[in-house]
């Protein structure tokens, strides 16, 4: 490596952040020698947040096409990306979410070169052929359809579509069906050429490696890729404050209703994020949690999931529960509202707060058991804030007090910021309980 290829920007908690001087790519290193294994990941700062009507789902469809071929890795030559990674035993995939797209591979550490050459190849040299998009579109459409089979997914997608009207969190990462079907290959190429550049990416290497060797290899593979010819476009749409409760209902055939309550909250970087995370744990983190006790232990709901969404822009605090058959969904809504009101009026106990802090802080310790788990958590942090946010998260959680938890409930979890969603099974008739609709063909 030429000595001046990288600039060390910062180090903290075992992480070292570099900048590749030739093109601005950020590189994050975290040695963790639990085993002769490493995870290499590239996070692109582009997600469904960067899409608009007509090309919703493009980020995700593009992610699929990134497996289809580059001049070096091409199925026609017997060097398909997945086949090459499979042959070394890699655990690999790519995922797309609101704020990011990530590509990762966990590999035996002596196979790092393979991972680097694939990721550098597809950073700027993806072929993006129309003949690949056509069959892949129907693959993605089936992925969309599988999601539509799930009441939970339908409920959460509709929740975001209702709570966000202007901001692109309105549309789901998988996209709207007609956009998935209709988007042209040229539009995907344009998207690729706008966002897939080293200066819009963070590469990370976690696990078993020598720093100097690793940096030299990263420079060899990525150093010659130029930075973007134009500045990366930024999202400037801001969702205005919600000024009143919103409600929606979805009715489909089925047997079990779902109820969801979601309040508009803050962006991940906001100082109140740790208190909302602690609140989420107190309400939904395990058997001892308040909503588990009030809903599941009282046989009103089959389970309860609490999600303090942490995204780049202001997001939601959600409670979702499948309703036990025979129970009115309105009962679930009433109990959730009561429990929120109870926190607003009486706060939470120090013991509850302590349990939540312990669990959230421990999650970060457990992350370090495996390189891919650190990479996954770090990818999310980089997407919504930055790696320091992840490094500082345990300390931020540690400072949360019961008064903070009560304050964030009063500040954000009020009716004007609430979206209530119900997924209701259509009345029986077309389908009986159990296996009534079954017949041999």
């Amino acid at each position: 490596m030429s000595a001046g290829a990288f600039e060390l920007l910062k180090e903290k908690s075992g992480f070292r952040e570099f900048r590749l001087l030739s093109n601005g790519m950020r590189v994050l290193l975290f040695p963790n020698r639990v085993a002769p294994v490493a995870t290499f990941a590239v996070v692109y700062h582009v997600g469904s947040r960067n899409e608009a009507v007509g090309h919703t789902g493009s980020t995700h469809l593009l992610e699929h096409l990134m497996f289809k071929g580059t001049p070096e890795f091409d199925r026609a030559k017997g060097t398909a990306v997945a086949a090459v990674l499979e042959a070394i035993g890699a655990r690999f995939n790519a995922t797309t979410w609101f704020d990011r797209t990530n590509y990762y591979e966990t590999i035996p550490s002596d196979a790092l070169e393979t991972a680097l050459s694939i990721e550098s190849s597809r950073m700027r040299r993806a072929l993006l052929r129309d003949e690949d998009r056509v069959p892949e579109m129907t693959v993605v459409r089936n992925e969309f359809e599988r999601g539509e089979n799930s009441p939970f997914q339908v409920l959460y997608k509709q929740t975001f579509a209702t709570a966000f009207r202007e901001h692109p969190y309105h549309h789901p990462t998988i996209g709207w069906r007609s956009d998935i079907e209709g988007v042209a290959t040229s539009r995907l190429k344009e998207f690729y050429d706008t966002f897939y550049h080293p200066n819009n990416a963070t590469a990370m290497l976690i696990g078993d490696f020598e720093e100097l060797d690793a940096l030299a290899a990263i420079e060899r593979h990525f150093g010659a890729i130029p930075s973007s010819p134009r500045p990366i476009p930024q999202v400037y749409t801001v969702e205005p404050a919600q000024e009143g409760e919103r409600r929606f209902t979805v009715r489909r055939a089925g047997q079990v209703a779902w109820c969801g309550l979601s309040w508009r909250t803050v962006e991940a970087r906001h100082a109140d994020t740790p208190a909302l995370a602690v609140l989420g744990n107190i309400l939904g983190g395990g058997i001892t949690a308040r909503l588990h006790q009030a809903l599941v232990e009282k046989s009103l709901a089959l389970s309860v999931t609490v999600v303090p969404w942490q995204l780049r822009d202001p997001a939601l605090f959600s409670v979702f529960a499948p309703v036990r058959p025979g129970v009115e969904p309105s009962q679930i809504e009433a109990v959730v509202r009561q429990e929120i009101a109870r926190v607003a009026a009486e706060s939470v106990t120090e013991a509850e707060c302590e349990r939540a802090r312990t669990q959230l802080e421990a999650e970060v310790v457990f992350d370090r058991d495996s390189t891919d788990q650190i990479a996954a958590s770090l990818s999310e942090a980089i997407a919504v804030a930055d790696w320091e946010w992840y490094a500082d998260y345990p300390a931020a959680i540690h400072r949360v007090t019961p008064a903070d938890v009560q304050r964030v409930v009063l500040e954000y979890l009020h009716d004007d910021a609430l979206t209530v969603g119900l997924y209701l099974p259509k009345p029986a008739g077309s389908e009986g309980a159990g296996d009534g609709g079954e017949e041999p063909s």
Partner: protein
Amino acid sequence: MSAGAPRRAPFAEAVRGRTLANGARLFVLENRFNPTLALSGSMRAGRLYAPPDRRLIASLTAGELMKGTARRTKLQLAEDLEGRAASLSFSSDASDPVGVDIGGSALSRDADLLFDALVEVLCLPVFPAEELDKEKKRLVGAIRQQQEQTSIRAYEAAMRRIYPAGHPLYRHKGQERIAKVEALDRADLEAFYRERYGASSLALVVVGDVDAERVLDRLEAALESWTAGPSPTFAAPMVPAPVPSSETVEVADKASADVVLALPADLTRTDPDFLACSLANSALGQSSLTSRLGVRVRDTEGLTYGIHSGFSATHVAGPFTISVTVKPEMRDAALASTLDEVRSFVAGGMTEKELAEEKSSRIGRFKVDLGSNAGIAAALDAAIYYGFGVSYLDEFPAKVAAVTREHADAAFARRVRPDAFTVVSAGTFGAAK
């Protein structure tokens, strides 16, 4: 580029083991890199040992262990474990008719807390009636929820068709299961626990930042007085001859349908053909992206997001299944392509290149899977559960490398006959049915 991670001593040397007088087997591997530990274990108290008309007693007994002991209520146990970010679970389901899975994790400072809870729950459960009532209500709702899932509906209908009633892999219809749940009471669970639970089939593996001798001493002291329990032996259930059939299960309002192709396969995890069959299956259909089925049905034809095949081989010979999700209108095309690929695979076998890639993949993935405490614990637990011993982890790469193409092709073709599949589709087909 690597060479940083210290070379591990062979597992056979590094793992400390102890067998107690009552038969319990304990294994500990020190791995000091992170202040955590993973627990994995097994017992033989699965559905195979339950009365044929009430198999679910086994899963409920395992699930209810954590609902209270002679010393602590469910809530007290949860407070003690959750308060320290520790977890402990017991489960048993139809995917392994013989075993009960034990899993746990903790920060290493809380190791004793986890071990004490583990032993207390195993040895002193009380199965409180009010907890079982709650669980029955939840389970009835969960079964109804499952009836909305096309994947579960297709798989269960296929198991009903290929296995006879009474076989541990036979699956009752949802309504029948609900009736069986409602008829259970705590005496059923207590009786099954008394009959089936005991130290003789218990194996526990602990991996992480612990002192091995100390852990062995503590677990031995806590478990040595536990009853040995019954012999874990069992009569292997018969493997029925395949009788091909087809069925469409109509599930309303579903955008995606599931198709399951299934046949009873004469393959257990301990069969000398297992690795050969498993490598052949990897080439055929383990990966939606790279296996033959994935390359044809997903990558080339765009008919599905996911297509997988596999043997369900435990101590009991389970089914060989291929599952594929499709837009309902594309079912017939996907099915035709799938069967076409299976026929050509069985007729022609793997190529040498495919076998070499699958071997390299399997050996590499084995290394990757041993990259965490939980991964090592799971691998050790499986090696012990199937009677291979700790050294299996050291020998595994050589065993994979030794498989020949002739062996893999013949072993696979003997078990997977393309004309023997039962095909079940579940989804919204309407007039297309």
